[in-house]
Each structure stands twice: as structure tokens, then as C-alpha cells.
């Protein structure tokens, strides 16, 4: 008689109670002696294997991203919801589809600044129309042109915001907000940003990759804002990324929901430090993307999708439910 390795659950923790039997009499005796208990534990293991993890996805229909109808173009999820018990929303976003291009813009108004929501709305609107103009005009992007275009448009947005603050007779620094722009074109994906939040894309091997590294200080929530942009600081403050490859999915988010869908801090035993791996969660984003594909196959209207997405960001997980920071998460994918 030969048995494979069996792990027994003892006192709520797995192993290292392992029985290895290679047809020897002593092991057979041990097994015989505990046969009933082993059978009981094996049936518990089988039951636990079949049972979904606590708080996890239950019977949600999942359709692999490969089943996305090829002619459906870009489909997307978009929503900004205010933080738990926060009086008003200070995030803003836009998601624009133009032919083969998808533009995702996320701005997060600084919580402590008086006019940051106005700043966030203004920057989103300004950059959305400018990037759309470029796409419509047939601009060809490469590493170089993206860097220059993105930085000049970010500076232009800041200058226009400054002019508005002067007209309104408000303190310009009170309009502080972060900004992320992701542009996925026919054969490239690009990102430009000022401040924190996260952005990523799905690579050819089906893994989600980060598109940007947020500006973060040692103090939690400290970052840089669009209002700090000057011609001399453009290179330092507007970080740009250009990947010359077609992507099937992109994501952009404010820092509110990052703790839920991104690996942002982990202990590195080799350096004895906590590090930010800046790794999008394949499990989280994969599941959401697959659910979006399932809804696309079922032709669920965009308004319904946006409502479902808004509900998810509001209280879809325990952390999202109690997060006091505003939460914006945009996701677009194509067949």
C-alpha cells in the first residue's frame, strides 16, 4: 500500500504534520491506527477546497478576456465616489474613446485645499479636450513626441488654471490637484502624471503592469500638485512613460482605492524594509476585467455598468466601504 502526502489540519494551522508512507510496516501501522481521523480530515480538506474563500467571489459569471467580441471596440468602467462620511467629492475623471484610442484622465483634488475640486474638474476638462484634439488631428506618438506633448499640455493646463484663479480672485495654490493621463493607442500605451494615484496596462503575456511611479513623501498622503508646475520643474514633476506595444486593457485610479487593487506596500526581508512593489493585482483587475467582458457579451448598457461600478467603489469590499478618501477607478479594455 502506498499513500500520497497528506497534510493534516491541526489546531487551526496547516502542517507541518505530514505523513509519508513508502510501504513500510511502521508507517502502515501509524496509518491504520489513525485511519478514521485521516478519513475525516481528508473529507474536510475536500470540502474546504470546494468552498469559495470567505468574502471572495461566489458565483459571479467570469468570462475570460479572450472571449471579448473582437468588434466591440473599447468597453469601460468609470466612476468617482466620495470617501466615507466625506461632505463632498474632490476627485474628477474623464474617459474618452476615439476610434482605436482610449484616454483615461484622473484628478484628485487635495483634501485640505479650498478649491481643489474646481482645480480637478478644470484640469480634467482641459486635458480631455486637448488630447482629443491631438488624436483627431492624427498626431503620431512615439517616445519623444509623447514626452514633449504631454509635458507641454500639462503646463498649459496649469497656466490656464492659474489665469482662472486670478480672474476669480482666489489663491492659486488652493486649486491643488494631482493628475494622471493614460492614452492607449493602436500600437502603444502612454502615461503622464503629476502626483500620486496609480496607472497600469495589460501586457502581451496577460499580466498587469504599472505605468507610473507615484510621487510620494514619507508622510502618508503627501504628494505634488499641478499647481506646482513651472517650466523649470516640468521634467521633474511631469513623469512620462511610453510603451511601444498594443495593449488590450488599461487602468487609472486615484490613491483612494489603491490599497484594494494594487500591491503598494510589503515587507522586504532582504532589506528589512517596507517597500512599495507598485504591482497591480492580477487577481483583482483580472476578475473585474472578466466580469466586464461577461457584461459586454450580454450587452449590458453603459449606464448600468457605470452604476454597478459606482456601487462597487462605494462599498464593494470592506476597505472600500470605510475608505475616507475619494475613490476613482477607470478601466478600459478592447477585443
Amino acid at each position, binding site marked *: 500500500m502506498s499513500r500520497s502526502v497528506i497534510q493534516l489540519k491541526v489546531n487551526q494551522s496547516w502542517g507541518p504534520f505530514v505523513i509519508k508512507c513508502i510501504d513500510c510496516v511502521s508507517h502502515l501501522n501509524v496509518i491504520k491506527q489513525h485511519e478514521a481521523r485521516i478519513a475525516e480530515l481528508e473529507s474536510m480538506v475536500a470540502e474546504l477546497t470546494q468552498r469559495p474563500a470567505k468574502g471572495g467571489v461566489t458565483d459571479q459569471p467570469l468570462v475570460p478576456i479572450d472571449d471579448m467580441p473582437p468588434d466591440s471596440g473599447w468597453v469601460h468602467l468609470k466612476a468617482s465616489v466620495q470617501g466615507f462620511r466625506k461632505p463632498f467629492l474632490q476627485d474628477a475623471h474623464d474617459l474618452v474613446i476615439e476610434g482605436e484610442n482610449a484616454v483615461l484622465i484622473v484628478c484628485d483634488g487635495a483634501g485640505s485645499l479650498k478649491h481643489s475640486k474646481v482645480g480637478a474638474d478644470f484640469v480634467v476638462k482641459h486635458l480631455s479636450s486637448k488630447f482629443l484634439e491631438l488624436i483627431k488631428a492624427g498626431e503620431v506618438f512615439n517616445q519623444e513626441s509623447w514626452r514633449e506633448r504631454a509635458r507641454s499640455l500639462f503646463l498649459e493646463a496649469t497656466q490656464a488654471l492659474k489665469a482662472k484663479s486670478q480672474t476669480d480672485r482666489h489663491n492659486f495654490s488652493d486649486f491643488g490637484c494631482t493628475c494622471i493621463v493614460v492614452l492607449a493607442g493602436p500600437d502603444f500605451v502612454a502615461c503622464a502624471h503629476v502626483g500620486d494615484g496609480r496607472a497600469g496596462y495589460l501586457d502581451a503575456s496577460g499580466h498587469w503592469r504599472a505605468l507610473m511611479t507615484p510621487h510620494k513623501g514619507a508622510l*502618508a498622503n503627501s504628494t505634488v500638485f499641478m499647481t506646482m508646475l513651472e517650466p523649470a520643474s516640468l521634467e521633474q514633476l511631469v513623469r512620462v512613460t511610453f510603451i511601444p506595444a498594443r495593449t488590450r486593457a488599461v487602468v487609472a485610479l486615484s490613491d483612494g482605492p489603491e490599497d484594494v487593487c494594487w500591491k503598494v506596500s510589503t515587507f522586504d526581508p532582504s532589506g528589512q524594509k517596507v517597500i512599495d512593489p507598485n504591482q497591480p493585482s492580477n487577481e483583482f483587475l483580472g476578475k473585474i476585467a472578466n466580469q466586464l467582458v461577461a457584461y459586454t457579451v450580454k450587452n449590458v448598457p453603459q449606464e448600468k455598468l457605470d452604476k454597478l461600478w459606482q456601487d462597487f467603489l462605494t462599498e*464593494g469590499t470592506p476597505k472600500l466601504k470605510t475608505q*475616507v478618501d475619494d475613490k476613482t477607478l477607470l478601466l478600459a479594455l478592447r477585443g
Partner: protein
Amino acid sequence: MYEKPFEAEEVQNYSQKCCVALVLDTSSSMAGESIDQLNFGIQSFLKEIRADTANLGQKLELGIITFDTAVTRVFEPQLAESLNFKPLTVNGTTMMIDGVREGIKMVIQRKEWYKRTGQTYFRPWVIMITDGDPDSVQQGELPRLAAEIRQGMDDEDFWFMAIGVTGAKMSTLEFISHEKMEPRKLSGLKFSEFFRWLSSTIADVAKGQNVSDAMKKNSDDAWDGGFKI
């Protein structure tokens, strides 16, 4: 037509830390009901933190310093959920200035450790609770302590909050406090109510809310006695 809500499991990340140093007056004048209520308040505070659904016990690091004739670091900063609190006892005079300075030193050291180990953190708090006035030998140091607190608050190194219990000289607390966080007077011996307020305020701060909004949001009616100089 009914569509199922979106579902996905959260990623597990390391929590950002918020350090709070409690600087507590354990001079003889706190004997009796005052120290009993203070001890009970701290125990209730720890209980609330452990029960917090937003995982505050994993974020809040609590250190405790007492001051009487001597200044003692009773507990070095540690995760509040694992702090094994033992009731405080009273003794001697009120070396308040040294106590507050030790509290400031504790949070600055903890910040350095956070930086060294790559951990992001929220601005730490130093919370001093007293029913008296510094010993006469320390009175001359008050202007310097006030300047140190002012500098620390202006540089966003820490928050300093002074709580006066019946008998506290509120004008002294007013003198050393920054206008961004004025001293407060505890109504009677409502330590439990104060710590309940502190727990929910810090919970909001540790979730990312700015301090003044968090303080406004959490009602202090249950413990704030108000005072006039």
C-alpha cells in the same frame, strides 16, 4: 434586468502607521478616582481599537509616558492591539515639561524608525493629560517648551494636544499649545468619553482624513468641559 454586482478580493497591504504618545500626569494629586478613571479610560480605548472594523489596531502605535517626580517611558510605541496595559499608579510631583519633551522625543524617534524602515506614516500625536501645573523648578522652561511645540507643529513634525483635568492650570496649557490645536478641558472625569472620541478621530486620520476635519466630525460634547482663562 438584474445584474450581479461586481466582486473581487482585496489586496493585502502593509498598513500605514500613526504613532500616538500619551503623556500622562501621575503625580499625587491624581490619586483616587482620577487615576482609576484614567486607567479605565485607557483600557476602554485599547478595547475599542481592537474592535475597530477598519483595522485601526494594525495602524495605531501607542506609546505611554508618565510624569510625576520622574519621567518614565512605561510603554515604547507598539501596535495598540498588542499593548499589554497595566494600570498606572501615582507618586510625587509634576515634572510636566520633562514629560512633554520625552513625548516629543518618542514620536520623533519613531518617525526616524519609520523612515529608516521605509514605512509611510501619518503625522504623530503627543497628547498630554494633567490635573496640575509644572513644578516650580520647571516654570522657567515654559517659554522654551512653548517654542519647541510651536516649531514642531509649524514644521508638521507632530500634533500636540493638551487635556486639562479638574485642577489643571488651563492658562499654562493655553500658553504652551499651538492655536491650531487649543487645549481642552475634560468635563469631570470623563476619560472614557475622551478616549472614545480620540479613537474615532484617529481612526479617521489613519484612513486619510485631515485632522481638523476628523476632529470636527467626531462630536466632543460627551467629554469637553470648555474653559475660559
